[in-house]
């Protein structure tokens, strides 16, 4: 099977400090891939490299249909079909929930297109559909800044979904959520995976165990191992990395 | 309901503000004036006093306003003009040229003043010129300027070029040397003045070693002084403006150049400006004006005394102050002669009007509405006053287009 995303020997050098030391990663169609690893392993940096926020010092990122994307500008990468949800909710607080989604809808994104854009029934239907999916139907006209933390997280996920991406990058999507909300988010992620590939960075091991099929473990800027959660837990190196730092996998 | 109230409230507040702002302070003026002559109402006649009372030019212009008000007061004490008391309407030009145009318009249209005394910079005069011409008003402009202008609605009581710059250059050529270096701020007066000087030097055997301009407000003169040092001129002719003079003279002195080595003749530094630079820095350098505080006549003694008593002992009088002061007297005399405040009649009557100003007799030249004045070259003293070294004896006829000088042909226009 051909991967959607291929990372080849990615290195990132922050003024002499190597945050990534040659990462290789493949993400396949309709896959939910979890990235785990201790703090400072380079998980977020890897997402940053994929979506163009951070430039790799070395290596290639290849995206299906667009070829090599690591030299492209951020908005071009996003247009190519890679959506990114940041760790801290980054939404537009002074716009309403509806407007946040309206801007995120998959559409032509030039100045002229937006000047002449009409709010037709098709767009409305899309937004309604997503609102329902992220459970914010009743908040559509509220300013996004007034939402609860968990709701902001969902709104941001919704903003990514409505772009109809081929690959969704989620950075700690359940941070700050209650138990019920976590579960809902877990199902939402699986639901999403029917339409696109998802790459999730997550710290919460229960969550990972419950919702993951494939897991990639990173440590100190490199991939340590890959496999199912069960396999990974057996891996001695992984145990050492976590236990050696005084942390347990479970 | 709620939204309506909100909007109504907002609009109410806004409209009140707007009315207050637009109607402004002249709400008290009856704008539909029935009297047929300008500015006259009962026992008083209104005149406008329009100077920058705020902003960068306030430094110079406030004292002109004071001088004009003093003259108005004196005339009122002596019985007024045509039996009417003069009522000054004071406006602030705020060192902003459109504001000068705006206020001149207000004075003429809304206050309907008989005349305006005002302005300092050429730019402010140029801004007021179309306004007074279009409204057939009258403006008395009291500061030396670059010439090349003669509006039927303006009287010029400051020197034009042939009453200050041209004689100064001749005097320098005769007494101080042939090699000139010209420096000035980068604006209209210095550039026009230097153009005239260059033509004159050519005609009278002088030599031009350099010509430099610095932006307004420039304060680092080390490079310019290096250039002057390298050129080694006999004299420096200075048309720098305002603040730049302070920096230039201080740094010139530091560079070890004194009046003995290279004297500087300035045409924009009078007694007022010396106070802000320091007499110690300027002592020994020259100026060219039509009036100095030190002029020894009874009229001047009286004038200086009254001015100091009224506005402060530490103050000084200088050329523009005197010109602003006697402008009011010239206008009053012209009105008396015309027997009317009407602009056209005053203009017709103005030719040859003469008054005894603090610095000597001054006379209006009807052909160009400038003033006959005595030219004086002076040396700046340690105490900040100016000692007269030379004067032209008789008053010099104003010649704003330099028509009486052969070498100036072709200067005044492209033709």
């Amino acid at each position, binding site marked *: 099977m051909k991967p959607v995303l291929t990372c080849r020997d990615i290195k990132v050098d*922050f*003024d002499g400090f190597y945050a990534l030391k040659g990462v290789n990663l493949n993400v396949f169609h309709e896959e939910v891939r979890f990235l785990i690893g201790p703090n400072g392993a380079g998980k977020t940096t890897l997402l940053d490299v994929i979506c163009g*926020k951070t430039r790799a010092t070395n290596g290639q990122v290849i995206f299906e249909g667009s070829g090599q994307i690591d030299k492209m500008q951020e908005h071009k990468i996003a247009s190519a079909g890679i959506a990114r949800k*940041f760790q801290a909710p*980054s939404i537009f607080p002074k716009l309403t929930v509806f407007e946040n989604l309206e801007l995120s809808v998959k559409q032509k994104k030039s100045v002229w297109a937006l000047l002449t854009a009409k709010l037709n029934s098709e767009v409305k239907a899309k937004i309604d559909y997503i609102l329902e999916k992220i459970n914010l139907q009743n908040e559509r006209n509220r300013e996004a800044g007034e939402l609860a933390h968990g709701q902001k997280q969902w709104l941001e996920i919704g903003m990514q979904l409505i772009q109809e991406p081929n690959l969704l990058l989620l950075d700690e999507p359940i941070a700050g959520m209650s138990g019920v909300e976590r579960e809902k988010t877990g199902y939402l992620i699986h639901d999403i995976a029917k339409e696109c590939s998802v790459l999730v960075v997550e710290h919460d091991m229960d969550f990972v165990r419950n919702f993951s099929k494939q897991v990639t473990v990173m440590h100190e800027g490199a991939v340590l191992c890959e496999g199912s959660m069960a396999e990974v837990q057996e891996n001695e190196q992984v145990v050492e990395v976590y236990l050696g730092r005084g942390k347990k996998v479970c | 309901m709620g939204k309506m109230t909100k909007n109504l409230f907002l609009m109410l507040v806004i409209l009140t503000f707007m009315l207050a702002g637009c109607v402004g302070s002249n709400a008290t003026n009856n704008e539909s004036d029935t009297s047929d002559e300008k500015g006259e109402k009962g026992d008083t006649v209104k005149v406008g006093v329009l100077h920058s009372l705020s902003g*960068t030019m*306030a*430094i*110079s212009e*406030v004292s002109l306003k004071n001088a004009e008000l003093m003259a108005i007061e004196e005339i009122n004490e002596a019985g007024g003009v045509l039996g009417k008391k003069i009522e000054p309407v004071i406006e602030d030009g705020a060192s902003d040229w459109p504001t000068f145009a705006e206020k001149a318009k207000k004075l003429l249209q809304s206050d309907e003043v008989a005349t305006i005394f005002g302005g300092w910079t050429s730019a402010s005069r140029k801004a007021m010129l179309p306004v007074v011409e279009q409204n057939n008003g009258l403006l008395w402009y009291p500061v030396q300027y670059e010439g090349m202008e003669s509006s039927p609605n303006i009287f010029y009581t400051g020197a034009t070029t042939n009453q200050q710059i041209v004689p100064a250059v001749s005097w320098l050529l005769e007494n101080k040397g042939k090699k000139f270096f010209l420096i000035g701020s*980068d604006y209209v007066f210095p550039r026009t003045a230097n153009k005239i000087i260059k033509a004159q030097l050519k005609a009278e055997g002088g030599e031009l070693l350099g010509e*430099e*301009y*610095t*932006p307004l*407000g*420039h*304060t*680092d003169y*080390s*490079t*310019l002084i*290096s*250039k002057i*040092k*390298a050129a080694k001129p006999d004299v420096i002719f200075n048309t720098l403006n*305002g*603040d730049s*003079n*302070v*920096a230039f003279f*201080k*740094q010139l*002195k*530091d*560079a*070890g150049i004194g009046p003995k080595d290279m004297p500087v003749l300035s045409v924009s530094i009078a007694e*007022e*400006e010396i*106070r*802000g*630079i*320091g*007499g*110690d*820095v300027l002592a020994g350098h020259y100026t060219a004006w039509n009036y100095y505080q030190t002029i020894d006549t009874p009229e001047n003694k009286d004038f200086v005394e009254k001015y100091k008593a009224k506005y402060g002992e530490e103050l000084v009088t200088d050329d523009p102050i005197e010109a602003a002061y006697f402008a009011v007297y010239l206008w009053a005399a012209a009105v008396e002669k015309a027997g009317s405040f009407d602009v056209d009649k005053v203009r017709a009557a103005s030719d040859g009007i003469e008054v005894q100003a603090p610095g000597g007799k001054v006379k209006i030249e009807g052909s160009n509405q400038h003033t006959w004045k005595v030219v004086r070259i002076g040396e700046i003293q340690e105490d900040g006053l100016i000692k007269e070294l030379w004067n032209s004896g008789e008053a010099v006829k104003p010649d704003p287009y330099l028509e009486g000088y052969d070498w100036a042909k072709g200067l005044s226009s492209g033709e």
Partner: protein
Amino acid sequence: MKGGAAMEIWASQLFNGLSYSSFLLLIALGLAITFGLMKVMNMAHGDMIMIGAYVTYSTQLIFSSFMPQNMFDYYFLFSIPIAFVVTACIGWILEKSLIQFLYNRPLDSMLATWGVSLILQQIARTIFGAPNVAVKTPSWLDGGLQIAAVTLPYKRLFILVLVGLCLTGLYVYLYRTAAGRRMTAVTLNRQMASCLGVNTRKVDAGAFALGSGLGGVAGCALTLLGPVGPTVGTNYIIDAFMIVILGGIGNLKGTLIGAVVIGLISTFVEFGSSATIAKVVVFALIILFLQWKPFGLISTRSRALD
């Protein structure tokens, strides 16, 4: 023979350039702290310079009327610390009453401090009058040092030394004393410093006062070279900002280099053309340079998103 004259001109221009740089550095140094380190767009910094200049003028008046004649020449040495203290106090009051509400709102702080600047100017005008005032140079600063055919005025040498002292003083304070280290810590990472028990409010006020005080010292030096009037600060504020952003925000070394670069370029361009052209060239170069290096000559790479 001719080569000697050319050398002479080059040498004196180099000195002029360095001297102008030192003056620029002095006016920018305070701003490098308030704007560079604290990120406050302090448009009133020019008026701290103005106040410093008026303090010098007042000290001169006091010395000439109350002190023995032979002491007069030393008024200038006294005026420097006085100007520092007075403007630092004004800066402190300003921080406590206004600036502290404006951290993280750089554009708003720009507008508010512009308002402060207008008010300070009007106050100065009310107290000292609108015209410029004359400050008499102490006699020991008259004249200059003659090296071959080049004259180095004592005043300019004095300013060079003064800048050197300010710079070393600042360096020692910021990196070698506990109070200074606290200040650097706060500007680098406010939350972390606060967690470690640093009273950030106090440090902010102190830093702002220090920056303003340096403006006051610049004002003192200004009286040696230029005019003293209520609006004098506006002449310098734009230059000072340009130096700080050219050098890179948050970096004293950058400010130093920025001042030297601008000083040298403008004097040499002026020598080859005119002062007007030099001004246009310098500002156009700044615009172009920032296109190339948006964060100035020396910038630190940051990982923050916004």
